């Protein structure tokens, strides 16, 4: 990576201390010309000098070094509920992106043709047309159930590598993480399997939207489009119409919720997703709203009997799975080339388990078990 000293922040730090470049050079034991060259971007300090520069001027790496932005991983989180994204979350995700770079050389050759969505408007009819075009490409009608297999095939065809992870149900900021390496034109999508089955398909569709709209990755409008696209793809307006007709005949909120829930079960998506799509449809068509509130739907959805099992439990019972079972599922169920590529890399380079820990953001004993299995 081409690195340049962040001359503005260095100059600001010097101004705060009341120093000139000559005093800085003396403090660091280098020539004045060396400091001038760093600040002009024609030279870069040796590592030991950079460390001394950091402690002398009280600056961290990001304040001291200007990295090539075109080479930086682009990050998008699928956050849990109202989880707040902190600098720590972003730094950890960027570090995972940096860790992924050596792995890219071990992936199969990239596809030259990829699906891209150019119209990312959020207007109802426009969004429905976009989702309908994707369904047509998949070869399924507007009222058909969109399966996991359909979604998984699209990731593989668009150089988006699924990394199924078990990050736990609660103690994690995000349930999915999208890391695009722009220079390598490859995307890694970490999907937390410790999530409810009913939410999982929505998140996959959300992540697929990011894959189809690389220009919006990491931006707020990208998140808004991904949410709206996922809903429209999984439960298009034709289905929303049927659900509305069914539910609007019911007299009580529980009857309405029950009708919506039948559709949610049939399409393996959450009750709230169905409610949301029906509500959006009703609004777009100017129809009378359903006589149920979003709070009532949330309350019904949050009961355990509605939420159902975790994906990990469905796949691996009993938990936790043996490393071999887990790796097989990544390849067999999710068609992921992540572990085969990782296996070749570990064998060829003799990389330690700490790499697996950092690239997957998991505990060291789990990383060690996966490392041992891949080297078996």
């Amino acid at each position, binding site marked *: 990576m081409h690195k340049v000293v962040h001359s503005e922040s260095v100059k600001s730090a010097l101004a705060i201390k009341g120093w000139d470049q000559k005093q800085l050079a003396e403090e660091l034991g280098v020539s004045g010309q060396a400091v001038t060259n760093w600040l002009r971007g024609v030279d870069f300090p040796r*590592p030991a000098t950079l460390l001394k520069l950091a*402690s002398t001027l009280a*600056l961290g790496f*990001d304040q*001291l070094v200007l990295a090539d932005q075109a080479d930086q991983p682009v990050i998008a989180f699928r956050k849990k509920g109202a989880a707040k994204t902190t600098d720590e979350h972003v730094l950890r995700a960027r*570090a995972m992106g940096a860790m992924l770079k050596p792995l890219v050389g071990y992936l199969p050759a990239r596809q030259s043709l990829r699906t891209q969505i150019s119209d990312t408007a959020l207007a109802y009819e426009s969004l429905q047309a976009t989702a309908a075009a994707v369904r047509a490409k998949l070869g399924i009608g507007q009222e058909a159930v969109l399966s996991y297999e359909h979604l998984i095939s699209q990731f593989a065809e668009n150089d988006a590598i699924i990394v199924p992870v078990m990050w736990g149900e609660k103690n994690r900021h995000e349930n999915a993480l999208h890391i695009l390496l722009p220079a390598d034109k490859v995307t890694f999508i970490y999907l937390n399997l410790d999530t409810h089955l009913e939410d999982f398909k929505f998140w996959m569709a959300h992540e697929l939207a990011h894959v189809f709209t690389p220009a919006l990755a990491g931006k707020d409008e990208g998140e808004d489009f991904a949410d709206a696209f996922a809903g429209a793809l999984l439960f298009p307006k034709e289905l929303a119409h049927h659900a509305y007709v069914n539910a609007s005949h019911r007299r009580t909120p529980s009857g309405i919720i029950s009708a919506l829930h039948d559709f949610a079960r049939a399409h393996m998506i959450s009750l709230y997703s169905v409610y949301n799509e029906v509500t959006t449809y009703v609004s777009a068509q100017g129809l009378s709203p359903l006589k149920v509130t979003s709070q009532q739907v949330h309350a019904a959805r949050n009961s355990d009997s509605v939420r159902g099992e975790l994906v990990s439990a469905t796949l691996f019972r009993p938990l936790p799975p043996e490393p071999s079972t887990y790796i097989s599922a990544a390849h067999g169920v999710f068609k992921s080339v992540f572990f085969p590529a990782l296996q070749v890399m570990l064998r060829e380079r*003799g*990389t330690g388990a700490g790499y697996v*820990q950092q690239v997957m953001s998991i505990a060291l*004993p789990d990383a060690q078990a996966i490392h041992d299995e891949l080297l078996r």
Partner: protein
Amino acid sequence: MTLVLLDTNTYLRLAKRIRPLLGMKFGQKDYVLMVLKDVEDEVRRNRTLRSKFPWFDDEEFGTERDSAQIRLTADEKSTLNNARSVLRGHVLADVDRYTSGGRQPPSDTDCRVLAFGQIREAIVVTDDLGMHLLADDFDLPIWHGWELLSKMKAAKKVDNDLIRDIYAALERNDDMTATWLKAKHTDFARVFGPKPE
């Protein structure tokens, strides 16, 4: 006095058998061994390590670690954080270099340990080859675990029987690193003899 900072694995490899270990001066340079609180945190949150090293929670060891811990001032914490970020940034800018030859990229915690070494002029002891590469890049003093043991032998802090005992435990726990193995019949040739043909 020269501070010598043990990483988690080095502490776990030596602390049970070399008693006392931390806080005692030894050698001509008055080396004093210590650990960071990170060791405490890492072992406590890692069920596998806790079950593999049950003695870690014994009062004797906890008291020794507490008394050998170094407290940092607010300024030192800030300097430490900046140094850590420079070391970690250096790793992340070129992860490739840290993924070959049995290495693994130094983690954020590893970088914190090396940064501590820099601000307190301590020698870091670790068998992590990625940390050695990083320390070499930044001209930071660093030892392998066997180098520490060798210096303790020279200072008569450990004897040949204890060295044999430590090596036997490494083999028994399937914890023998390539560097410890190489040192067995070179630096510790007087204990184990030359490498068998």
